């Protein structure tokens, strides 16, 4: 799979003041780095902007874009995604990989059996985890460690994995995942339909448990 030629650094979520400043939801590790890789462009590459960071507020980066001088012009950009060329990002160190490079790569075992492709790179505080999805929609979480992922070959566009014992049996079918979401939606709908009765019922239940 070819490496991505563009990386999305953020999206414009609102405006700030009357002089054309915008609020950017930044997707970079350090939010202010949205301006660190040179001029940004829209998805097609047709419009380019120089970004000047003014500060941060409410989880967003306040910035001024070149050529945007008033609030109306800034309002027109709401929802615009900002991209930089992949080549603008500096080379990663050894054993470091950009998420953008890993996502989409096929993963196979040492014997060549396909495990799926990388859907996302997660980190919950215990190291990076590759989220794989196979053609049957089954999901597998693979620790991104030397033992579990001995080889990442970006040039050939593949990852060789050696999953720990018992991990392949933990694959979650996509149907189960969809079922969970559907059940949640049903519960929410039921609660919304009979809001008062549902809440009252809940209260009675809790009271019963207390007694």
């Amino acid at each position: 799979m070819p490496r991505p030629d563009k990386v999305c650094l953020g999206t414009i979520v609102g405006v700030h003041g009357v002089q054309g400043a915008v609020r950017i939801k930044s997707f970079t590790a350090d939010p202010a780095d949205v301006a660190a890789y040179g001029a940004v462009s829209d998805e097609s590459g047709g419009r380019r902007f120089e970004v000047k960071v003014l500060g941060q507020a409410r989880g967003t980066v306040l910035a001024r874009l070149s050529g945007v001088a008033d609030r109306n012009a800034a309002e027109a950009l709401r929802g615009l995604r900002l991209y930089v060329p992949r080549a603008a990002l500096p080379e990663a160190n050894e054993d470091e990989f950009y998420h953008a490079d890993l996502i989409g790569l096929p993963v196979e075992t040492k014997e060549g059996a396909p495990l799926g492709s990388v859907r996302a790179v997660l980190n919950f505080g215990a190291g990076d985890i590759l989220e794989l999805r196979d053609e049957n929609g089954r999901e597998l979480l693979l620790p991104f460690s030397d033992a579990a992922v001995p080889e990442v070959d970006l040039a050939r566009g593949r990852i060789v994995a050696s999953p720990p014992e018992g991990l392949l049996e933990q694959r979650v079918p996509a149907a189960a995942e969809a079922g969970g979401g559907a059940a949640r939606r049903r519960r929410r709908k039921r609660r919304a339909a009979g809001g008062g009765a549902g809440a009252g019922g809940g209260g009675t239940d809790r009271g019963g448990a207390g007694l």
Partner: protein
Amino acid sequence: MARSVWKGPFVDGYLLKKAERARGSGRNEVIKMWSRRSTILPQFVGLTFGVHNGHKFIPVLVTENMVGHKFGEFAPTRAFHGHSGDKKAVKAKE
């Protein structure tokens, strides 16, 4: 309020046994567990646990910095997928 020191850290008994068995076998395996409330002990360092988040098992490779925390802290129960941006993944050494 903090837990009394005289009680020691809480760990479910079955988990200790499983961890001892895994360490004894020396195999590279994921220890499936549901006890999110258990404290991470020094003897768990280097082992990989599959911590259940209500839906699937999140692989947690235990390192020294995680000792004293609870397993549940490393397996969130709510899904969130961010954007990649310029973020980097670092390969963990075991």
